[in-house]
């Protein structure tokens, strides 16, 4: 596939004399294709092209009440919780970990928020009006606090007790939903308080508010990783934890905080989901979200073996999953097919990452 690299030596030695245009363009194209984001972007583009061809009005955007509406906005809006979960999962996976308790944390934080806010009807000036049971900022803080606690619990088990990440987070995955159901007595909690709905279905400057939240988190984390040594530290822990520790990096603290961050993101996703559906269902909220998040991260080119990661890649991965889901729904294919398609995508992505398969593929040619 890759075009032959220009012969080293002579052309380099000839210094500033301009090489033929062809040899100059070829490596540029090669590096573009071999960029880690090339594959996910191409996959997303292919999906979008498919949609443009088969779904009439896919690109249509209209402005109603100063808000943008359209299939593209819809996909972005629905992808927001998954994007948040994938952001947190990226850092955990970058340190060679995995967090399968994300769905349970979504259920817990959504439940806590919904229970604390609830909504009681009062008659104000003859108008029925709903007021929150607990002031909303307090309720949101409590929900996020629970999520942070969950993350700290996972972090202590993984970084402190040195349990395998999958086992450590399995504990919360099993018990978390049980706890959420204990809080709600097994009932679905409905929220009636208007301002809470803004989080999941409100608009800011014409765009869904949830997108702004995702963008803000992405920006803050992205800057932290790029502008400080944090990104480098996380990468080195993922590549070789022992070497990283010997080099003076506080690996345990670092790993602890990636789990806290992951759970916090999951908590925010839980708030978004429960705000969007105006209720919290401890049994079904965020069900299998951890798997979608892991899938998004893998699709985005992050290696499950740790060390190599891309936040933007994970965002694209999440968009691929949501676009795929959306496409399947709107093509009129039974939504159940979704899982089969996802499974096949995972198989293909894993195989394309495996060195064994690459050798087999090259050997054939």
């Amino acid at each position: 596939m890759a075009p032959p690299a220009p012969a080293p030596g002579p052309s380099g030695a000839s210094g500033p004399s301009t090489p033929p245009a062809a040899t100059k363009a070829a490596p540029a194209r090669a590096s573009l294709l071999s960029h880690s984001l090339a594959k996910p972007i191409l996959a997303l583009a292919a999906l979008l092209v498919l949609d443009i061809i088969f779904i009439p009005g896919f690109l249509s955007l209209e402005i109603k009440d100063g808000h943008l509406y359209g299939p593209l906005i819809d996909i972005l809006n629905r992808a927001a919780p998954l994007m948040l979960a994938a952001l947190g999962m990226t850092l955990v996976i970058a340190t060679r970990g995995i967090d399968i308790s994300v769905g349970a944390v979504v259920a817990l934080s959504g439940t806590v928020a919904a229970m604390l806010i609830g909504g009681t009807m009062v008659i104000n000036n003859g108008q029925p009006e709903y007021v929150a049971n607990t002031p909303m900022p307090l309720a949101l803080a409590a929900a996020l606090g629970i999520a942070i606690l969950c993350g700290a619990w996972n972090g202590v088990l993984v970084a402190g007790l040195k349990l395998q990440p999958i086992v450590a987070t399995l504990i919360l995955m099993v018990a978390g939903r049980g706890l959420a159901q204990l809080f709600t007595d097994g009932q679905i909690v409905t929220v009636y308080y208007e301002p809470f709905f803004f989080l999941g279905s409100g608009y800011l400057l014409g765009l869904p508010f949830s997108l702004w939240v995702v963008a803000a988190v992405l920006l803050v984390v992205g800057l932290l990783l790029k502008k400080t040594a944090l990104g480098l530290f996380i990468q080195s822990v993922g590549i070789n934890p022992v070497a990283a520790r010997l080099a003076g990096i506080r690996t345990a603290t670092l790993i602890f905080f990636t789990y806290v961050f992951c759970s916090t993101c999951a908590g925010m996703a839980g708030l978004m989901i429960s705000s969007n559906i105006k209720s919290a269902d401890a049994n079904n909220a965020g069900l299998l979200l951890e798997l979608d998040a892991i899938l998004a991260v893998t699709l985005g080119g992050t290696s499950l073996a740790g060390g190599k990661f891309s936040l933007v890649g994970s965002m694209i991965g999440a968009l691929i999953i949501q676009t795929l889901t959306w496409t399947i729904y709107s093509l009129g294919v039974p939504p159940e097919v979704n899982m089969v398609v996802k499974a096949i995508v995972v198989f293909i992505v894993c195989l394309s990452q495996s060195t064994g398969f690459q050798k087999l593929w090259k050997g054939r040619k």
Partner: protein
Amino acid sequence: MSAPWFTSLVTVILLVVLLAAGGGAYEGFLSGQVMLNLLIDNAHLLVIAVGMGYVILAGGIDLSVGSVLALTTMIAAWLLNAGWNPLAVIAIVLAFGAVFGAFQGALIHYFQLQPFIVTLAGMFLARGLCYLISIESITIEDPLFVAASQTQIPFIGGFISPSAAIALAVLAVAIWASRRTAFGRGVYAIGGNEQSALMMGLDVARTKIGVYAFSGFCAALGGVLFAFYMLSGYGQHAQGTELDAIAAVVIGGTLLTGGYGYVAGALSGVLVLGTIQTLIAFDGTLSSWWTKIVIGGLLFLFCVVQRLLSARSQQS
């Protein structure tokens, strides 16, 4: 202290304590039939936990078992309604489970993919295939399946179902194979250290693929037993069973890093989970979601104990 029998002993003591607590608190808790019902209600889980035990001993994990169970109930119900012979149907779904597992094992071994992610995809695939067959639950009215769900086999002072008998037979064979066959020893060797197993000249490929094939077979057999129990095929059957099976294996004293533990631990693990459920059912005031919380707590306890024990054995 760190010998495999120690953690297994802890599980057995835990089981005895749980049973004694139940017997002390609730009248009739320790009656023979209540104990046998533990086996009857959890026959499918026991079979799956046996398969999972092998996978975990070999240092892997299989997240697809719950979905494969659901898929086999679905295929069985579908074929039975199409008028197929029930014995042929059972043979087909068992073979299907083994092939499904072997396929995952081959991907894991030959392409060095993580078992976690491959079986995760397998989980999606199997659940998705369920819904391709039907979104609704399909009732099974086949005489053989109905007979299997209603027959009572006399067993020490009570009765067990044919499913429980099959599960116990599978357990017995699996225990024997783990101790007495080359395959069983190979599983322990690979779980202990795959590199050394390979250098010792063990057929790592065959053992590893075999382990996943066996787990798939057990999942399919669990599906047949579950179909006996529920007399229906449904895509939502046994959601989260893979977690119960992993929990049972861990509580049964097997180390999740592989190579350490007993296949028999699956029985004690399943019985502990079953006893907790029965305790909650007898209490009547506790909600069923307490089961999940207690299982989570037990998982935590056992993981920490295992961690401390292995840390100590490394130091000494």
